């Protein structure tokens, strides 16, 4: 490939590796891969500075399909691998690609810790509410009653809500999108890329083989308009094909759907504030689930906090300033010494 040195303009093609993609036809993963390839060239970051780290699962094959640096690691541990990469070289932009099983079952521990530390990583969770790679067992996000090979009578577990977990861990960036909602997904990925700190994005992903249509309510034209609220900072929570519905708080502080007009105006609605330091609003939005409520899409929370990697390096720097650059001779000779 000949590269014009003066104009390193990248296109999605530059991020495509030569490896054959082995997802099932029509798997939602394809769309997420395509949007990623679109977003990266817009970031103004040289190609060699991207690292994709994944765990294990269908989605975790992702790094093989990107012509960047990357590691397909072990089940659930990608956040920890990525933390090591970022701490070794903070100059890299590090993405974590994970599934709902990968990050919330076996990797639940690491998921929570990478977010609460605010390591500057982008964590993209492909949520298909099922285990794809192991051929269709229920996952920690599957609704109670889900019938699978391992739960022929329906699961009795109560599901986790990924955004509630992330917000509970005080993620400084938390967002949600849908695999086929191309524009929206691109904009969310771009915002995650530009966030300084741990950015968490849940993407509703269709596993058309083992859990087909699980997110139709949020992805299908004609349905999604009635089921989804697109969050915009500083704007009221309005939704519906005719933008005639909204969400406000009732007298108990609980969200409720109201129709606009008939005495209710936009001013009565709940306004989104992604920059709120306290997490009440983000929790409240995360608790809005289909079918009882419209589900929010977009950025739930985006706040500025010092990153873990910066703090680590500040300590290294100030220790070096205080004591001077480490000197082996001096180190070995500290404490009581004697001559023979």
């Amino acid at each position, binding site marked *: 490939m000949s590269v014009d040195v003066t104009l390193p303009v990248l296109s999605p093609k530059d991020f495509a590796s030569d490896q054959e993609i082995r997802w099932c036809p029509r798997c939602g993963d394809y769309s997420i891969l395509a949007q990623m390839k679109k977003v990266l060239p817009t970031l103004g970051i040289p*190609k*060699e500075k991207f690292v994709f780290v994944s765990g294990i699962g269908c989605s975790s094959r992702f790094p093989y399909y990107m012509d960047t640096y990357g590691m397909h690691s072990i089940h659930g541990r990608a956040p920890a691998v990525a*933390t*090591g990469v970022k701490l070794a070289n903070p100059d890299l932009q590090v993405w974590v690609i994970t599934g709902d099983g990968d990050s919330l079952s076996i990797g639940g*521990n690491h998921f929570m810790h990478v977010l609460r530390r605010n390591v500057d990583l982008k964590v993209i969770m492909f949520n298909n509410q099922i285990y794809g790679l192991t051929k269709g067992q229920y996952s920690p996000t599957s609704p109670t009653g889900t019938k699978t090979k391992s739960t022929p009578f329906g699961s009795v577990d109560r599901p986790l809500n990924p955004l509630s977990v992330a917000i509970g861990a005080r993620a400084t960036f938390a967002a949600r999108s849908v695999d086929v909602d191309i524009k929206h997904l691109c904009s969310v990925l771009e915002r995650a890329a530009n966030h300084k700190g741990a950015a968490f994005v849940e993407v509703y992903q269709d596993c058309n083989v083992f859990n087909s249509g699980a997110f139709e309510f949020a992805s299908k034209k004609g349905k999604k308009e009635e089921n989804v609220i697109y969050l915009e900072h500083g704007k009221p929570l309005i939704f519906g094909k005719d933008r005639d519905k909204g969400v406000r708080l009732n007298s108990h502080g609980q969200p409720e759907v109201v129709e606009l007009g008939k005495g209710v105006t936009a001013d009565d609605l709940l306004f989104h504030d992604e920059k709120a330091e306290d997490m009440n609003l983000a929790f409240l939005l995360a608790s809005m689930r289909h079918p009882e409520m419209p589900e929010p899409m977009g950025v739930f929370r985006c706040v500025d906090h010092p990153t873990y990697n910066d703090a680590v390096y500040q300590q*290294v720097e100030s220790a070096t300033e205080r004591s001077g650059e480490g000197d*082996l001779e001096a180190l*070995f000779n500290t404490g*009581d010494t004697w001559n*023979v």
Partner: protein
Amino acid sequence: MATTDVPGSNGKISEQLDAVVIRFCGDSGDGMQLAGTQFTNVSAVFGNDVSTLPDFPAEIRAPAGTLGGVSGFQICFSSSDIFTPGDEVDTLIAMNPAALKTNVADLRRGGTLIVNEDAFEKSNLSKAGYEGNPLEDDVSLAAYQVQRVPMTSLTRDAVADLGLSPREAERCKNFFAMGLVYWLYQRDATPTEEWVKSKFAKKPELVEANLKALQAGYNYGITTEAITVHYRVDPAELPPGKYRKVTGNEALAFGFVTAAKLSGKQLFYGGYPITPASDILHELSKLKNFNVVTFQAEDEIAAITSVVGAAYAGDLAITASSGPGIALKGEGMGLAAITELPLVVIDVQRGGPSTGLPTKTEQSDLYMCMYGRNGDCPLPLVAPASPADCFEMAQEAMRIAVEFMTPVILLSDGYIANGAEPWQIPDVSQLKPFNVSNENTQDGDEFMPYLRNEKKTRPWVLPGTPGCEHRVGGLEKSDVTGNVDYSPENHQFMTTLRANKIAGIADYIPEQTVEGPESGDLLVISWGGTYGAVRTAVKQSVQEGLSVAHAHIRYLNPFPKNLGDVIKRYKKVLIPELNTGQLRMIIRGTYLADAVGLNKVQGKPFLISEVKHKIKELINEEN
């Protein structure tokens, strides 16, 4: 220094000794580790060879005065070189009945027993399970020279005018005990005095109290009529140079920092606290100005995987743990093995399985480290022989990791980790250079992440390098291209290739040496922390005219190339181990040698006498 009429002798006799073993023991709140460490320091600074064995209680807060709460610290100091903290104790300092009960069996007949008489009251005696007071009958302690010293009350008197609470005052009694022992062995207390001044710099009343207690103990030695002899142990004839004392964990930290400094690389440590490995994390956390990044992960799995990530991105990366934590790291080690990334995993072994004996030493993780991963996954294994040897073996482990692009396991143990000995401070300009290349070494257009050099090593090219973008991962890869490939032939090929790469390291490590005759009746093979006991036992046996030699293996996988030939030169092979025979099984399997074992799993190191006894037994059978 000391003759019969030195000042402070009060006309008492000074007797010359070659080596002395003393042990401080008391309740875990009595400051016995501190007393032992300080005594070691003053002896090392005086010029003795020293070797130590701290012995911690398994329970953090066992009820005061009970058998479970006894903490001990043993030191051997000598005027010739020594390799162990000694078999039998010459002087035992027991701060309470529980300490006496659990330790007195190790005191040599005729040895000196110094007890804190004040602690021998009813409730302590019954907590220790004594029916009567052993100090007051004629038989219990008849074999020893017993010195009953009311340490608590003497300490209280010594600090009476400082206005401390009674509790604070009594806590100084370990310094009283130290003072008395310093007098007994004619130690110069200056290093300890300096230590007290800096340690309690913010609390001048504690500085004064501890120094007063120390002096009071020393003066007690001078004035008491009960003790008529004190002892002199001359400095040892160590090779000339500058020395300091190191523990194994300190020396490991120094070794890895050295490797990083010499290679101009950042050192990354990812770990999760566990006894007895935590001190490595503690030591490195202090050394941030050496370009050291430490990461206290959420668990051992995050620790090893963060280290895999750091190694991929270019740091010299290490993790340390003990048995249970190493068990958790197995999958991560496999990932590092198949992605061929350089890192070091330190296992500071303790008694197992499971939580086992957290504060006691053992060598029973050899099988786990040799085989404890899924798939065919041999990894290089090295094992330091002593605390000071940790400095060199840390660098060796990292050198092998980088030169061969592989995780390396370094097997230490609780005995090495916490034990201390003199370390000759190296001349920094003479340290072995440590070169690391992160260059793309190939000519062609497209970068091939699994293209190999003559050592079968792939290049360590880092993210951020333009034009070399590549992916690594746990799925089987095709050689050269690094593309995913699960064809049967490829897996067979890659499995063999990885195994051959590790086996080939044998060409780049030192050959096995032996101490003693080049051939003969018996070869004793040891590894890890049993070095000192085995070396001394063999040396003494040779002096007694037996035909026995000692091979101590520091490279456990691959073994030194000549090990098989060495083994063949002796009629019999003995392998003493603090496990039920793990190296023995491997040696038998590898060399078809009829090795016999001497095995002990009591959480305690070998005594020299145990090894000697076995050597004699085997040679006698032979003749």
